[in-house]
């Protein structure tokens, strides 16, 4: 029983064949790392899972993506409902120009929740889950822009957690951060695994090795190898995987 299951995915940007026949399954409460050189399709694959690619013009998608056994590209699927279930954290911290509190509450408000005490409780819980509460509890009414880059990224994670998704997508969440902030984010990912299914795109091999249970290696739109992270890093089956993780190209 898989949480996320993609079958025979082909994706085209105009004439460009960006994803070639991808089959990939992820179990609930695991962390899956997507690695590969730039332009290999790993971010495109990630955005497939919350239909973020729909926002780009001229995209054509073939195949099926099942989440909780439901085809998310089927007719009648409400995209905002899907995105509530599949949260996303972006490469660069992108908090809204609002207060810390309102940033986390945003997802609740746009989903029609107006119960004040419920919102307060969710904001608190989310900030705690994102390991940010202790640092911001006294300045919830301050602008999110006053936080450091690492704090902003954890705020974005809290913002994604507030609407209680079951899957969290992370697109190189630590690539714009310093090593200490990166370590905090990685620790957080490890903790979040208990409650969420996490898919993370990363350029950092060590990071993939540290945080993930399974690793998928993409190369020019193809899924080259997908296996337990330990296997991928100690005993890669494919020559290109080996070349990539040993740093011979990429």
């Amino acid at each position, binding site marked *: 029983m898989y949480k996320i299951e993609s079958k025979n995915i082909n994706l085209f940007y105009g004439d460009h064949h960006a994803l070639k026949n991808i089959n990939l399954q992820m179990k609930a409460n695991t962390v899956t790392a997507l690695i590969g050189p730039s332009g290999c399709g790993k971010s495109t694959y990630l955005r497939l899972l919350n239909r973020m690619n729909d926002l780009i013009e001229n995209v054509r998608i073939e195949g099926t993506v099942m989440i909780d056994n439901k085809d998310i590209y089927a007719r009648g699927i409400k995209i905002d409902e899907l995105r509530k279930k599949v949260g996303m954290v*972006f490469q660069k911290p992108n908090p809204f120009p609002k207060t810390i509190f309102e940033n986390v509450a945003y997802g609740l408000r*746009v989903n029609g929740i107006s119960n004040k005490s419920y919102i307060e409780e969710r904001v608190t819980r989310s900030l705690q889950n994102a390991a940010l509460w202790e640092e911001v509890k006294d300045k919830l009414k301050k602008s999110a822009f006053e936080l450091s880059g690492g704090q902003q990224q954890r705020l974005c994670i809290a913002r994604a957690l507030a*609407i209680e998704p079951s899957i969290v997508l992370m697109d190189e969440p630590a690539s714009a951060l310093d090593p200490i902030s990166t370590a905090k984010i990685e620790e957080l990912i490890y903790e979040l695994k208990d409650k969420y299914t996490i898919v993370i795109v990363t350029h950092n091999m060590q990071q993939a090795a540290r945080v993930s249970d399974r690793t998928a290696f993409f190369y020019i739109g193809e899924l080259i190898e997908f296996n337990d992270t330990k296997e991928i890093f100690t005993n890669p089956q494919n020559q290109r995987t080996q070349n990539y993780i040993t740093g011979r190209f990429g």
Partner: protein
Amino acid sequence: MSSIVVLFLVLILGFIISKGIGVINWKFLTTMPEDGMTKGGIYPAIIGTFCLVGGSMLFAFPIGVMSGIFIHEYAPNGFFKNFVQLMTNNLAGVPSIVFGLFGMSLFVNKLEFGDSILAGSLTLGLLVLPVVIRTTEEALKSVNDSFRLASYGLGANKLQTIWRVVLPIATPNIITGLILSIGRVSGETAPILFTVAAYYLPTLPDSMYDQVMALPYHLYVLSTSGTNIKESRDMAYGTALVLVLIVLIANLVANAIRRFLSKKVKMN
């Protein structure tokens, strides 16, 4: 180069101030013209200009901002969008006297508003519509897409994203459009020539169907076709100074609002 610009600005302002300051006093600002406009004040022209600025903004601002939002956020890339943008640019390049003639034939004659604040405001509104549309578009363009993506990623729909995230960020820059158009509207003469401006009308308007005097046209009258041009010369400089001051104050106030909002936008 830029110092030359500043130099000319200072020269022009200095000239107008030195010639006009002697005329300006409370009476000048608050009484009707007298003695064939060689004495008295310019009160009706000031009120008239305020009416026209207000009326034209009431028309141009909502329509312009909504058009800008539509073009930038909703219209799909393609022929229609390019066409609208091209036409907006063309509209901005049409000489203002043409707007005046158009306003006269449509609003004054065809729609039978007569020479009125309504007709003048609509004509002036049309004139500045492209300015408002363009600045709105630019303001929206400057909003980083990552905010939009973050909002969509949290399950917000397009309207929520625009309303709750994009517009608050863009508002300070949209206000700039308002500033520019207020300056433009209060100084334009040609569009009001045939649509609203009265040569001499020492009463205040009762409704939007009344004619009014307006500062730029009054200035034109005083300096070219008054009953006694030489004697009304000082009045003309005084009028010019008032006009310049109104534009200046409008700019300062709008700038203050803009600065206040851009500080506040981080906090909402």
